[in-house]
């Protein structure tokens, strides 16, 4: 009996040594962060600023000593806007490269393609886009703005300023349909009326019929959810036909920088609520823009996607350093405290424990006849309250679902 414990003890000794040396090694080994952004193909116009945002943040953080004393190693793959490639690359990042954190995805379709793969691992995933909201998943942190931040601000303002008759022009896929649904839901209590709703297949670039339908319906303003370069051709065509109706959108200007691509006055009369746009001129924003422009002087526009990609890494640094660990459960314990936030260029923003979405300082912008952007209204900091309100609470359960106003969590 005695001999056996002794033997067991002797056998255990070198094992401890191995674990010890591995731990010591782990402390100096770089943190691997996997990045999936489309930097070629149709979505390159968004993917490139996102890549730049991540690169700038990594360079700055590494220059100041990294996270928990460890350098960040950014591993970037280009899924080229192809969802099958997103899944393949996500598997490679998570299973073969064993990244500590996965960031990326542009369209909601790409996010939904990789989310189940992330859910099968114990790795954290940060989605850096503004989107239609509703993802209740403990593996995912969302740092972009969601409808209660962009639409609950914009739509009531548009109704009050321009009127109740609204015409929706939306891209025919999940973002367009869900955002249109959000519009209907928000308009109802305001007495608003959707006088026309058109879904456009992605890739369609000719809008003569849509423009005429709008003129026939005589709306007070247009709710623009058209997506991609082809569908953006709506704007010069509408301007050439003298449509002259105010437009509101959660994705124009701050995301697609249409005002930098089309000659004035094509984007005149566009209104949008955003947490970031390059024209923001607070001291923190100016400082951030100066650093970005120093590293990427040829950037056409620092859009909100690129900005969010930058903020995501600082968010992760704060979480990891407060948790003193890269482990997902340890990091989520920090989020659960409800005060996990950073001073971002837009202002102080915090991750909401129930939904793991981020609060944002929202401002309403407008575009004038010279395509210049003005700040019309400051909404202050808006919480991502909707998921928590309808019953998503990631501190208690993890449904891994995406909810919409028409698809709510089951009542308990």
């Amino acid at each position: 009996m005695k001999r056996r414990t002794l033997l067991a003890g002797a056998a255990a000794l070198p094992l401890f040594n191995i674990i010890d040396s591995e731990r010591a090694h782990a402390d100096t080994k770089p943190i691997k962060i996997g990045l999936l952004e489309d930097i070629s193909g149709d979505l390159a116009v968004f993917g490139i600023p996102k890549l730049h945002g991540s690169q700038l943040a990594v360079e700055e953080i590494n220059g100041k000593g990294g996270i928990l004393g460890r350098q960040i190693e950014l591993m970037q793959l280009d899924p080229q806007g192809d969802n099958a490639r997103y899944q393949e690359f996500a598997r490679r990042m998570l299973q073969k490269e064993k990244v500590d954190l996965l960031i990326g995805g542009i369209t909601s379709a790409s996010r939904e393609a990789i989310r189940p793969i992330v859910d099968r691992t114990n790795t954290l995933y940060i989605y850096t886009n503004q989107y239609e909201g509703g993802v209740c998943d403990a593996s995912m942190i969302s740092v972009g703005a969601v409808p209660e931040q962009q639409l609950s601000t914009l739509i009531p303002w548009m109704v009050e300023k321009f009127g109740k008759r609204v015409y929706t022009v939306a891209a025919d896929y999940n973002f367009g349909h869900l955002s249109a649904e959000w519009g209907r839901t928000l308009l109802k209590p305001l007495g608003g009326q959707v006088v026309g709703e058109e879904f456009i297949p992605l890739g369609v670039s000719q809008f003569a019929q849509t423009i005429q339908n709008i003129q026939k319906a005589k709306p007070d303003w247009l709710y623009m959810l058209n997506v991609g370069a082809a569908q953006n051709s709506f704007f010069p065509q509408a301007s050439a036909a003298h449509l002259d109706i105010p437009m509101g959108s959660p994705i124009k200007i701050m995301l697609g920088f249409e005002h930098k691509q089309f000659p004035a006055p094509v984007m005149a009369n566009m209104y949008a609520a955003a947490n970031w746009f390059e024209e923001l001129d607070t001291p923190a924003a100016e400082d951030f823009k100066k650093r970005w422009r120093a590293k990427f002087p040829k950037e056409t526009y620092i859009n909100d996607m690129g900005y969010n990609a930058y903020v995501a890494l600082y968010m992760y640094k704060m979480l990891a350093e407060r948790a003193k660990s890269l482990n997902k459960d340890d990091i989520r314990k920090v989020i659960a405290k409800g005060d996990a936030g950073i001073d971002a260029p837009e202002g102080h923003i915090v991750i909401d424990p129930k939904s793991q979405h981020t609060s944002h300082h929202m401002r309403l912008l407008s575009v004038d006849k010279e395509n210049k952007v003005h700040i019309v209204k400051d909404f202050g900091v808006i919480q991502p309250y909707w998921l928590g309100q309808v019953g998503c609470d990631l501190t208690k359960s993890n449904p891994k679902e995406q909810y919409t106003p028409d698809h709510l969590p089951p009542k308990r």
Partner: protein
Amino acid sequence: MVADLFSDFYQFADVFAFLILSAAGLAIIFGMMGVINLAHGEFIMCGVYVTSAAYHAGLPLPLAQACGAVVAGLIGMLLEVTIIRPLYSRPLDSLLVTWGISLVATQGTLIALGSTFPGIDTPGHSFSVGEYSFSSYRMVLFAASLCVLGFVYVLFMRTRFGVHARATMQNPGMAQALGVRKGIIYAVSFGIGTGLAGLCGALYAPTMNLIPTMGASFLVEAFVTVVVGGANVLLGTGPAAIALGVIRAGLNAWYGQVVGEIGLLIAVVLIIRVLPDGFSGWLTRRTS
């Protein structure tokens, strides 16, 4: 009433112009020469980019547009001589090669010129009929599409070059024996095809968002029109665009763009099923 009638005509004219202008170049390269040119969209994009660059360099718009067409034509001739020529008897290889050219062109443009390119003001004003206001430039596009149809017809049916070109496409050996210089005919025909693609881009440049992959939004309509038109492109392309234009514009107006796009493709399937040689085959059979 008048306003609604005019607006129906305007919608049809708009779709018709889009179909003709995007298909004209392909009708020559695919319809006559038999090259399945998957880089057609990139020649359109080339026309757009050259037009925009020339316009922003200070050229008046019509001249800038001419530059767009000419540059696309010259690049087409160069590619014909260097890459396409050995592939006339190998249609599947030419499909692969032109696809490769299209990938190189889009990614090359992205790397060299960035993800976006500055747009151009839409020229002309708007005009009103009843409660509707329209862009007068769309009427210019319609007129241009009629001119392109006329130009292609006169060039290939009424000139010596046209006779030589048609003879070469039908029987290159015999044409050569009769003294036609085959190489030049092929290069010039291909150049005219890509030049017309460039012209399409040049004309649509002021109405669109300019990115390297924008050519793709013309490709489906171009192929569909040429296939429905049939083997004799000079006879078939016009009627094909009229038929598809009526179907597309009608469905767009009554059921929206989603049904319009689905309906267009279903119509193509049905037309090819009933008229396997397209409109031109049917018309030739009727007249002979």
